């Protein structure tokens, strides 16, 4: 076995023997289930829910296996394993998803038990990446590093991983259930578009607690999560979540898949009635059994102890020299690098969005390189973001230039984090069995059109998000510009929305007008950008702020004037 040595890496939860035994047993269980399916002992109807519980979907070209990256954090060793699996069992690449996971697109059913066995060697699995259960809990990709962090979300995400795994009440929910946690002032986890969104805070005494938002979600019926309780103390964290899930289990609809998510329940019951039900259940549950013991929290917290930062001056002469000498690096620094809470360190976002590239895809060579760089520059750990990028969270400012040069040589050095080239796109009709239209070609065309890094910076913060069907895996509802692919009598069309916002000021975008063709869509996006640049009050006014101020009319007029 090739387990990660406890204590050898910073910021990674290390499995204990119970975790390992559980995952190993699940692998062997699935191996037998696959054997029984291939021999005909199990029908497809019987087998399908089993394979889905192990992250295995059947897509257009082959099986797709979704690997859990708990709260988006993994070690260099784990990333190398993902790369090795991609080479051996897939086609030399993987796709990072909006749930901070990784998907392989060309998997064989008969290989899956061996793949899961290899994953278990590095404490990874594909559990809770599909099915009507609590899915992989997501959090801030800057967790444990961000200057504006108040509470470390990894601790509570890990507690939820342990709490929800194989929880008998959570295994057959009415529908899938997604939870996100943010413990910083800025919301980098899009908490209010989740079934449960948790904002971790501290009270006047410095004690951690949580605001619970419930009933957010995208898809066919988008809703912004509603505040159900402003403050839940740490000791009640699990009890309150269990109360919500119990109410959902009891009242959530199982007769209609389109009305089965908790967002519909909250909407139909009304916030007041839903909250009352949750509070009553919470009052019944509250007690020693459900009290989150501070010692347990502390035990988990120790897994996420800060890495051994050097005592450094915050100012780096080496960085300043490189910045002055290399404008391309200076641009990347300004766009992709964020402030770290430790002096002399920085957070680097590795863009998986080269101009004209496929958002979220990384070759196995690129994965190996990032694993090497994580070990060399960031204590051997990295994060996956819900925007389909990677993050090295603890890079010395002195090392940033070397890091960027190595990234740039491997087409990983794009300076576009948060800019128009940083497009979220679902796999769409190129891979997905549910899609109605392709997403990736449009993302490629748009990012190629706006390839110039300086033009992107001039435009500023502007998130484009593309989904190939109404299930909204590409988060189009909350894109500053959202694009939804639709099929009209066999032809792909794209419906454009504007004004979406995934941050704490969450907003669902509005449809701008009739859907357009793929070619028209790229021109329409450029027209929207031109109208924004012509109308913004100054360079600091973001696209969504200009949109709020001037309304939709000038944008509509430009795009649809010729109709």
């Amino acid at each position, binding site marked *: 076995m090739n387990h990660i040595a406890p204590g050898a890496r910073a910021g990674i939860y290390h499995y204990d023997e119970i975790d390992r035994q559980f995952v190993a047993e699940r692998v062997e269980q699935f191996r037998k289930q696959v054997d029984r*399916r*291939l*021999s*005909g002992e199990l*029908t*497809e109807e019987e087998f399908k829910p089993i394979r889905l519980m192990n992250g295995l979907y*059947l*897509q*257009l*070209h*082959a*099986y797709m296996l979704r690997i859990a990256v708990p709260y988006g954090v993994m070690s260099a060793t784990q990333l190398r394993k993902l790369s090795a699996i991609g080479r051996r069992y897939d*086609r030399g690449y993987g796709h990072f998803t909006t749930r901070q996971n990784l998907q392989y697109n*060309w*998997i*064989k*059913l*008969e290989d899956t038990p061996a793949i899961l066995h290899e994953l278990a060697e590095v404490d990874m699995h594909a559990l809770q990446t599909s099915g009507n259960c609590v899915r992989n809990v997501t959090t801030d990709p800057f967790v444990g590093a961000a200057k504006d962090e108040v509470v470390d979300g990894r601790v509570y995400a890990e507690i939820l991983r342990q709490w929800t795994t194989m929880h008998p009440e959570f295994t057959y929910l009415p529908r899938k259930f997604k939870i996100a946690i943010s413990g910083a002032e800025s919301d980098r986890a899009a908490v209010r578009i989740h079934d449960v969104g948790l904002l971790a805070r501290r009270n006047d005494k410095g004690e951690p607690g949580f605001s619970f938002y419930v009933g957010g979600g995208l898809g066919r019926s988008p809703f912004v999560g509603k505040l159900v309780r402003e403050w839940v103390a740490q000791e009640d964290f699990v009890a309150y979540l269990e109360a919500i899930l119990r109410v959902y289990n009891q009242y959530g609809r199982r007769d209609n898949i389109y009305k089965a998510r908790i967002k519909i329940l909250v909407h139909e019951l009304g916030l007041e009635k839903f909250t009352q039900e949750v509070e009553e259940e919470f009052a019944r549950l509250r007690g020693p059994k459900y009290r989150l013991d501070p010692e347990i929290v502390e035990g988990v917290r120790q897994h996420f102890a800060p890495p051994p930062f050097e005592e450094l001056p915050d100012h780096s002469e080496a960085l300043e020299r490189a910045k002055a000498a290399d404008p391309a690096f200076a641009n990347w620094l300004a766009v992709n690098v964020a402030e770290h809470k430790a002096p002399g360190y920085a957070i680097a976002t590795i863009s998986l969005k080269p101009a004209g590239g*496929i958002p979220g895809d990384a070759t196995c060579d690129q994965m190996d390189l990032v694993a090497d760089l994580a070990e060399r520059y960031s204590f051997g750990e990295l994060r996956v973001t819900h925007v389909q990028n990677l993050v090295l969270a603890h890079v010395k400012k002195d090392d940033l230039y070397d890091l960027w040069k190595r990234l740039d040589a491997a087409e990983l050095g794009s300076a576009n984090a948060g800019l128009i080239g940083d497009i979220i796109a679902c796999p769409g*009709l*190129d*891979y997905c069995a549910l*899609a109605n*239209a*392709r997403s*990736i*070609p449009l993302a*490629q065309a748009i990012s190629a059109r706006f390839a110039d890094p300086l033009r992107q910076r001039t435009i500023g913060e502007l998130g484009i998000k593309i989904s190939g069907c109404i299930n909204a895996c590409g988060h189009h509802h909350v894109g500053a510009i959202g694009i939804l692919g639709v*099929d009209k009598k*066999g032809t*792909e069309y794209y419906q454009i929305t504007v004004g979406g916002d995934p941050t704490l000021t969450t907003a669902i975008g509005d449809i701008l007008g009739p859907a357009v063709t793929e070619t028209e869509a790229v021109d329409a996006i450029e027209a929207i950008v031109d109208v924004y640049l012509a109308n913004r009050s100054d360079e600091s006014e973001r696209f969504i702020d200009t949109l709020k101020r001037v309304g939709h009319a000038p944008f509509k007029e430009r795009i649809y004037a010729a109709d």
Partner: protein
Amino acid sequence: MSAKDRSKEGSMKAITANRLRDGEVVFLGEGGVWVESFAEAALFPRAEADGVLAPAKEKAEREQFAVDIYAFEVVEQDGVPVPATMRERIRTAGPTVRLDLGKQAA
């Protein structure tokens, strides 16, 4: 009769599935044999397709050979039969964004 010849007779259908053990896209060929290439797929007049589909589905499922078995429409384009929808065109070829992958790469 090949796919190219048969599609000229009017609106046709082909039958497709994913192979159970590896997920590979397969098509029902002549003589009830499953093939990997659309060019070798048997084409059936619309009215006959359902009659062919039902027993082929039953047999493939019974033998644990294939899953997700259905018929799809085929049209003629420049004298060549092609799937009518983008979805099926992508299944028969591979991702449009990775021409090095899927059947188109073979």
